[in-house]
């Protein structure tokens, strides 16, 4: 694997425009951004052909900092905007950066329908289990019994398994990793970008300042170690006894299949409508 020198990141950042960034010390979002940039650099994609789309939330601030075509949209609607861009310019690589609240609460409807259409979008879903930007409210992935500012007695709701949700809705590439496993994340991002269809990568991340404090998770380093210790690669799951994998974060490519992609299907439909013969 080609090794990308550290400086590459600086070439892709709008460092002269909008830094410092808004993220708290210890936040995983910067790590994810680093992995996205390294993946794009390794794939040698033309940045003029990349559109990064996001909704609203901590992770959704990402496009502002990076030198692509960037679209910071409305809360929950990143996938709808991205669908418009991709449908009109199918050759462009559209990367959606979103969070657990943005993508699966307010934006849940767009997630399931984009997955169902199998439109060629790359979704990086950064899951920090909480609404960080608004100060720590319960999200669809806040674990049962965890605390949030709107769950002061502990959360009574079960949480979404985001990858199962995406698979159930029809996503053709689904993977999960954590912000600790940066090399793995970089590889999965490349796989997701290269996948011809709807690809979703869940990155389990750490929000030490809000989620961590509310739930006594320790320092940012403690939370990173927890991601290392509490996750199991999919390849190891079958070999381990069930009690060893219970409640663990399963990392790996959970789904990968090739099925008709939406913009390609639409191009065929146009040919049909124009009365042209199939090639």
């Amino acid at each position, binding site marked *: 694997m080609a090794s990308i020198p550290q400086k590459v990141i600086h070439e892709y950042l709008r460092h002269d425009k909008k830094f410092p960034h808004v993220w708290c010390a210890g936040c995983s979002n910067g790590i994810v951004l680093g992995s996205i940039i390294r993946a794009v650099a390794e794939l040698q994609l033309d940045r003029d052909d990349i559109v990064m789309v996001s909704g609203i939330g901590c992770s959704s601030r990402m496009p502002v900092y990076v030198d692509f075509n960037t679209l910071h949209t409305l809360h929950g609607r990143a996938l709808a905007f991205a669908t*418009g861009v991709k449908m009109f310019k199918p050759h462009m690589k559209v990367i959606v950066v979103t969070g657990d609240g943005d993508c699966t609460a307010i934006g849940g409807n767009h997630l399931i329908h984009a997955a169902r259409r199998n439109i060629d979008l790359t979704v990086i879903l950064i899951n920090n289990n909480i609404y960080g930007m608004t100060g720590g409210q319960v999200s669809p992935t806040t674990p049962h019994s965890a605390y949030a500012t709107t769950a002061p007695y502990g959360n009574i709701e079960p949480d979404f398994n985001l990858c199962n949700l995406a698979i159930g809705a029809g996503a053709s590439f689904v993977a999960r990793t954590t912000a600790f496993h940066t090399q793995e994340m970089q590889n999965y991002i490349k796989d997701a970008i290269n996948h011809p269809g709807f690809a979703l990568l869940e990155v389990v991340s750490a929000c030490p300042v809000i989620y961590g404090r509310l739930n006594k998770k320790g320092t940012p380093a403690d939370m990173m170690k927890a991601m290392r210790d509490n996750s199991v690669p999919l390849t190891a799951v079958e070999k381990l006894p069930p009690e060893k994998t219970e409640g663990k974060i399963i990392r790996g490519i959970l789904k990968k299949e090739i099925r008709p992609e939406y913009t390609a299907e639409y191009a065929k439909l146009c040919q049909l409508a124009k009365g042209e013969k199939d090639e």
Partner: protein
Amino acid sequence: MPNTKTKLTKPEEAKVEAKAKSARGSRLMQGNEAVALGALDAGVNFFAGYPITPSTEIAEILSYELPKRGGVFIQMEDELASICSIIGASLAGAKSLTATSGPGFSLMQEGIGYAKITETPCVVVNVQRVGPSTGMPTSPAQGDIMQAKWGSHGDSPAIVLYPDSVRESYELTIRAVNLAEKYRTCVILLLDEVIGHMREAVTLPDIANIRIINRIKPTVPPHWYKHYDENQKYLSPLASFGEGYRYNVTGLTHDALGFPTNKPNEAQEMMDRLRKKISYNIRDLVQIESREMEDAKVAIFAAGITARAAKAAVSTARAEGIPVGLLRPLTIWPFPDEAVRKMLHNVETVIVPEMNQGQLLHEIQRLTKAKDDSDLVPIQKTDGTLITPGEILRVIREVH
């Protein structure tokens, strides 16, 4: 014989009317069909929508026509997704449009605000039905006039057009697309349910005679590009994604480059630009029809299908010798303040028929300053039926 002089204030649209020969033949068509054909002739190549009565025919026709022309039609999962995807497509370079009705229009308001703050061209057609809420889906009302201006949170000046016939639905759809491109904003076309579903014979003009406006493209190299360039008389060039400009778009208050800002001076500049690009171009935007107003003592101020009833009432009243005229806004926002002030100064009584609880009346009251300005007589109906020529005629006779 009654004087039937009609005056359109904008010569370019009048030209379309004059050149409308039968090259494409005369056809019986519905208002919604006229909107769809107008969109295609204006160069719309992206439609995203969600089914809703009484606007659905627009989506149905475009789902058939757009793929034939290599354009995009997509039925989205809801109206929130529809408005957002047409904005995304527009930034990628499309001329985009969606169509809906009251409940969907309410859902689209956040996206409409986003299109306005990011100055992204797009068109929303709202075929109005009775509200509030689900109301009466197949019955006419004119209750969304204020929503079309104030529906999205925050101050966001609006361009809203309002046709009164099938033919004009075609023309104003083209104009809506043109104005969206020129002013880089979300333009709204308000239709009445009855106009959307009414069939009239329409002769479409030759394509060559239609004036099409396309967004201005930047001529500067990417590192000089400002996504919101104040030096361009509030009408700044717009690069599309993929053209090498790599700019940022955000719904946050932003600076001229498009990056988020909390600085009061930059926030004020942005808000001023949104306001001024409308208010400095009133003459280009406002379009009214003035019918028999020269010697009128009584005036009717009405829009859309209600103006059609008013026209019939004016003809009958004129035949009876009553000096009555009609002032009709084709552009409802920005409001035709100047023409309305003149009307209030010149006539004794203004009758304001509308299928709502006084949304136009309220605007006219705003412009009533002098004590000797005309008396205002409302006719208001919100029961899902039209205001008839007879109802307006009765009031004309009463006030005369």
